[in-house]
């Protein structure tokens, strides 16, 4: 496994306000406040793939009833997620499951480095939240046609598949099946810009994800859960 000191993808780093409206910090601050107010059973953390999910009906239908919090920020890399988790976004909460979905924006890093960054996030979560089970979602294919980023994301997933099981309380879930068609294209019906998911795209990934979440949540014998669909 990668040595964290040598892996730039495993170095915590805040996003600089280059544009001038400080939106990244505003979102982080809001998440820290949500940790004070809420008692989530499920925590989602990651990039726009996580963030956008909350804007579709599917969030209200399937994930809100599980008392889920959404700490996704568009554009985030593993470094940014690490920084957020180390700076308040895990304070005062004890989710039973944490879903991690990040890595597709790590453009400066190799596949191995990205996987190392995701591993570092999983390690941080299991050490800070001893009761949580971590679910790491595989990176999806991107781009209309085959391209180097598809290969890179496949490689990241491959590293994760072999590394994550060695970490306790952590598993890998590949939700990418079916997005690349037999002619090797991705359809705008699933990813409206060949990266971000449509409502239909989210419905496709929600099925295996919700099944796993329910399995994990039902496996914990404790207290009340929200009424499930």
């Amino acid at each position, binding site marked *: 496994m990668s040595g964290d000191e040598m892996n730039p993808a495993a170095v915590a780093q805040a996003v600089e306000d280059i544009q001038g*409206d400080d939106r990244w910090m*505003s979102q982080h601050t809001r998440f820290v406040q949500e940790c004070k107010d809420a008692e989530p059973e499920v925590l989602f953390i990651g990039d726009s793939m996580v963030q956008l999910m909350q804007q*579709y009906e599917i969030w209200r239908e399937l994930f809100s009833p599980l008392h889920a919090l959404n700490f996704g*920020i568009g554009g985030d890399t593993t470094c940014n997620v690490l920084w957020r988790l180390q700076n308040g976004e895990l304070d005062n909460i004890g989710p039973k499951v944490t879903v991690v979905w990040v890595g597709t924006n790590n453009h400066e890093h190799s596949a191995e480095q990205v996987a190392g960054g995701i591993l570092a996030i999983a390690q941080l979560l299991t050490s800070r939240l001893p009761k949580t089970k971590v679910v790491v979602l595989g990176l999806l294919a991107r*781009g209309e046609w085959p391209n180097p980023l598809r290969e890179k994301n496949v490689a990241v997933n491959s590293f994760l598949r072999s590394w994550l099981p060695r970490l306790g309380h952590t598993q890998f879930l590949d939700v990418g099946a079916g997005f690349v068609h037999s002619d090797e294209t991705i359809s705008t019906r699933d990813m409206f810009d*060949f990266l971000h998911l449509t409502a239909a795209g989210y419905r496709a990934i929600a099925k295996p994800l919700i099944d796993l979440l329910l399995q994990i949540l039902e496996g914990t014998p404790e207290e009340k859960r929200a009424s499930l669909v």
Partner: protein
Amino acid sequence: MLMHHIANASLTDKVMSSEDSNPAATPTPGVDTQGDGRWMSLHNHFVSNSKDKEPDVLFVGDSLVQLLYQFEVWRDLFSPLHALNFGVGGDATQHVLWRLSNGELGHISPKVVVLWVGTNNHGHTAEQICGGIMAIVQLIKDKLPKAYTLVLGVLPRGKMPNPLRERNAQVNKLVQEAVSSLPHASLLNVDPGFVHSDGSISHQDLYDYLHLTPQGYQAVCQPLHAHLKGLLEKQAEN
């Protein structure tokens, strides 16, 4: 490039004359920095869409246009108007200008073009951004002489007051002045009052203080839809 105030020139002349030196008004394709060619893929899709479809309304712009297509509000309000959506996330005025100059207006004759762009023009002044928007308005007039262009005001952004809010407000003011003398274009302010009395914007309206939630889109789109219907009816009479 700074624009010098020329006392006797109209605002339209002022912005048009600096087209060559205004990066916001110079057609520029998106650059594939990430390595998956998505910008060009989207452009190609829009060009071939323009061959198959006969829209009455064309929406063109940045992610605020693009994301609109993903939510129920599009199907409820704009599909019935026979609308097409050519929004690309991250686009600034110069990118939209390039797309419209390179095939996205081929083969279609919408009655109304809804243009929503400007917030991503980082590093440009309000004057330059206005110049970019007006260059797009002029291009649409050249390619679609019968179409009406409805420019939507750029929304405020950021959780609290910041320079980009001031820039966007200034863009809207300049564009309003520039279109006021044009029979074929106008500016519509679609901000329903997102900025609260304490200067803050809520994440319930703009989930990342830039992009609209479905609730935010409802507040923007109801009056937009009503205005569009009025425009289409007027165009039908002509």
